């Protein structure tokens, strides 16, 4: 079928799945034990007050009606109020999201910067020492639990060597010197002109980002390696060599560029999967991002927040996957088909 037809179908499919997700999450969150109205008011509230608030929150309506109310609110951006922070969930999410996005972006950056060159090296030394070494590293990085490596980093770089801080985003002494413009510390510290804070922000983000990027590095390495090997053997590469082009040029400008497509696939998918892995890393490093907010919400039966966070992550996850499909479908239809079954 035509490409754009395919896209439209995909988009419709996504909407269906998001609606399905919202139904599942909404229903399960209403099943959570505890009376949200009472939790909001506190343990010593009188019954009348609890009933009054429950009626106000619409808790007495049947669940399908509550769901419709919620969806109506969703369309205008109203995600309800968090029982814990007593603020609008949307405000909370807007506040905590940049921290997570910043972490994921730096992770991606590290994945690319470390993974691709290593993959290239492995490809060039096929079956040699470097290749086998990187293969081992790749195995390692995919097998080790993210939260474990995060803890090991804390142990080694924080406690043992005392090189880097192990919790939070910024040392407390910088708090007042940095203004919040975007929510991305690395940006805001520069915008506030505070160079020392900027360096400190890097010091705080490097360990969690590295821990988060590890699994991705392994995958990127291997994909880069295998696609480089595939391409290397192609005729046109031989031809270029025959023309006397220097080998580094051949490698980077031509081979890598074409080999990049499968790698791009992985990167796109990675960005989405990082959203999931970020949860555990954020917890270990007390990173004040969406994951921490979400886990608190789950543990405290803050059902509006749970639904809000889940939907946000769901939308982001699905959107990124879709974008990747679109981009790559444009570039190489074979990949489009392959990805349908792989996700």
């Amino acid at each position: 079928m035509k490409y754009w037809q395919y896209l439209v179908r995909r988009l419709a499919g996504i909407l269906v799945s998001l609606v399905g997700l919202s139904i599942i999450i909404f229903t399960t969150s209403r099943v959570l034990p505890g009376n949200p109205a009472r939790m909001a008011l506190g343990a010593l509230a009188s019954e009348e007050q609890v009933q009054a608030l429950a009626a106000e929150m619409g808790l007495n309506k049947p669940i399908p009606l509550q769901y419709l109310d919620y969806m109506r609110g969703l369309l205008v951006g109203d995600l309800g109020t968090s029982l814990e922070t007593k603020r609008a969930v949307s405000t909370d999410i807007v506040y905590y999201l940049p921290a997570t996005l910043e972490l994921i972006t730096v992770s991606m950056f590290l994945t690319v910067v470390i993974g691709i060159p290593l993959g290239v090296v492995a490809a060039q030394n096929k079956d040699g020492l470097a290749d086998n070494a990187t293969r081992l590293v790749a195995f390692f990085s995919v097998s080790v639990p993210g939260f474990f490596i995060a803890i090991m980093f804390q142990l080694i770089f924080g406690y043992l060597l005392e090189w880097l801080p192990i919790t939070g985003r910024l040392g407390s002494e910088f708090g007042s010197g940095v203004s919040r413009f975007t929510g991305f510390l690395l940006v805001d510290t520069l915008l506030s002109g505070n160079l020392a804070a900027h360096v400190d922000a890097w010091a705080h983000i490097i360990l969690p980002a590295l821990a988060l990027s590890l699994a991705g590095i392994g995958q990127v390495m291997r994909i880069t390696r295998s696609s480089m090997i595939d391409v290397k053997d192609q005729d046109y590469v031989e031809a270029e060599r025959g023309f006397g082009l220097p080998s580094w040029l051949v490698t980077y400008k031509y081979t890598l560029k074409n080999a990049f497509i499968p790698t791009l696939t992985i990167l796109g998918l990675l960005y989405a999967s990082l959203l999931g892995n970020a949860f555990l890393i954020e917890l270990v490093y007390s990173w004040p991002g969406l994951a921490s907010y979400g886990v608190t919400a789950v543990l405290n039966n803050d059902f509006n927040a749970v639904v809000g966070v889940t939907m946000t992550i769901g939308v982001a996850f699905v959107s990124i996957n879709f974008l990747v499909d679109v981009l790559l479908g444009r570039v190489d239809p074979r990949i489009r088909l392959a990805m349908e079954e792989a996700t």
Partner: protein
Amino acid sequence: MSRKDITQMRSQVGSASESVRARFGDAASRRNFLKALGTAGIAGLAGCSGGGESYDGQEQTTASGGDDEETETESSSGGDSGSSTLRMSATQRFGTVDPAKGTDYTQVLALVNLYDPLVFPDTEGNLQGHLAEDWTVSDDNQTYTFTLREGATFHSGNPVTAEDVQFSAERFLDINQGYSSLLGNVLSKENVTVEDERTVSFTLDRVHSPFLATLVLLFVVDKQLVLDNAADGDFGDRGDYGQSFLNDNDAGSGPYELAGFERQAQISFSRYADYWGSFKDGAYDNVTVQIITNDPTVRSLMKTGELDMSSQYQSEETYEALAAEDDIRVESVPTVTTFYFKINTQKAPTDDPAVREAMAYGFDYETARNEIAPGSLPAQGPLPSSFGVHNEDIVQPTYDPERARQILSDAGYEEGDITVQNTYVKDYGLEEKMGLLFQQNMDEIGIDVELNPQTWGTMTELATSVEDTPHINQVFYGPVYPSPDTVFYNQYHSEAASTWMSMEHLEDENVDALIDEARSTVDADARAELYAEVQERIANQYPDLFIFVQSKKHAFADDVAGYTFRPSMSFDYWFPDFYQE
């Protein structure tokens, strides 16, 4: 390098050419920690809304936009030169700072500093004048007349008058949450009378001996400020009584003002320069209380000098490690707080007194005290022994598995018949260990135990209904006002049921009657007899396992002095006590 070096070095921060060690040496940040296994009811996230604000955690959360009455936000990081800051940690969130609603240890911690009550307990529990200079009691012991001291003002600048006291009482009773039931049962708001600008009287419905003690929880609010900020609500021309305002703002006259409030993360205070009382030399200009549930974080923050005082709920290992540091000391002080396993007496199978008795004799109290909570004191019945009216003759069960098994088989139970749930605060090492010990002990006598860690918020929520309250709940409870009545009424009187303090859901007419009688007995000796009897009555029903009496431990930086214990919850966290050496 020592804490002092680091502190000094940090105050010279600014150039990027600092040594790597100094800059990267601090192992944590003020951002608080949400541990994976949940919290004692809180998350560790600071929340700022809007743009253009700093990352300083002291920013006010704007729950509803456009609060003009926000108190000033002040930066109080330790690096400021010229102003001193005491940085403490707490383990559970501050649900609210509304004086009519606060009940748990963090809420009262805030309230006791933002507001003044009429009277204040000393280290023995005796009541001293505070906002009230003096008072008289009528002959029939039902009317209390207070004379307010001169010159006391609220943080807003308004003077403290008798009208404010009357308003505070009315508000407390009308909103009907928090500890208002303590007063609500004996006082109608019509009977709070303003005699003149500095005189107010309370006429009780009947004689109530703990009345004066319960007044420590009546915090006086600024009537004018509250009414100016009242939103629409159910209280007629008083609107919502300022509830949404007071949820996040302060209308008090206390020694410290609210400087910033991040519900989940931290709360900060700054000294009120025009306070009627005097401050010691070296008193702190600012105080910050951070919520930190994770022990290693507390430890590393104290080591790097970013925290001056720990909470009382750290693990033993943490206290040991901190005590070994050069510039940190750990102080332990005996309290009148008991650690209970509160047993739901209305839910099978723990509604059978035999089962409760068996559990009481099946638990290894000594191991619990010596290994899990070293330094704690033995418990004997529901009232700690340092209370004068403690009944020495109460039989405290000892670890006797044989006897426990006997009790169970006599009552017709076989091994595996009984399954109970033991609930405790997630991620609190001490309670988890207690749970595991209990599970093992009960296994020996044929009772199956399911462990059920929850957040503190969930535990308080579960307490509100009999069916939802788990069989066994691990709770620390100490006097919330300086009178033995607090131990009995809040926990065992059927009127006070369904709170985290009364998870026993005890419904015993005799106990109720004794407590009521003690309340209307003015003669101290007669009262002591009644208290002795009620202790025995309660103990005989085994509504709890009385595990130990807490020795409160805090880790202090060496330059923090002044901690003073008072037998009323969180009154030992009165900031004017503390000063910097």
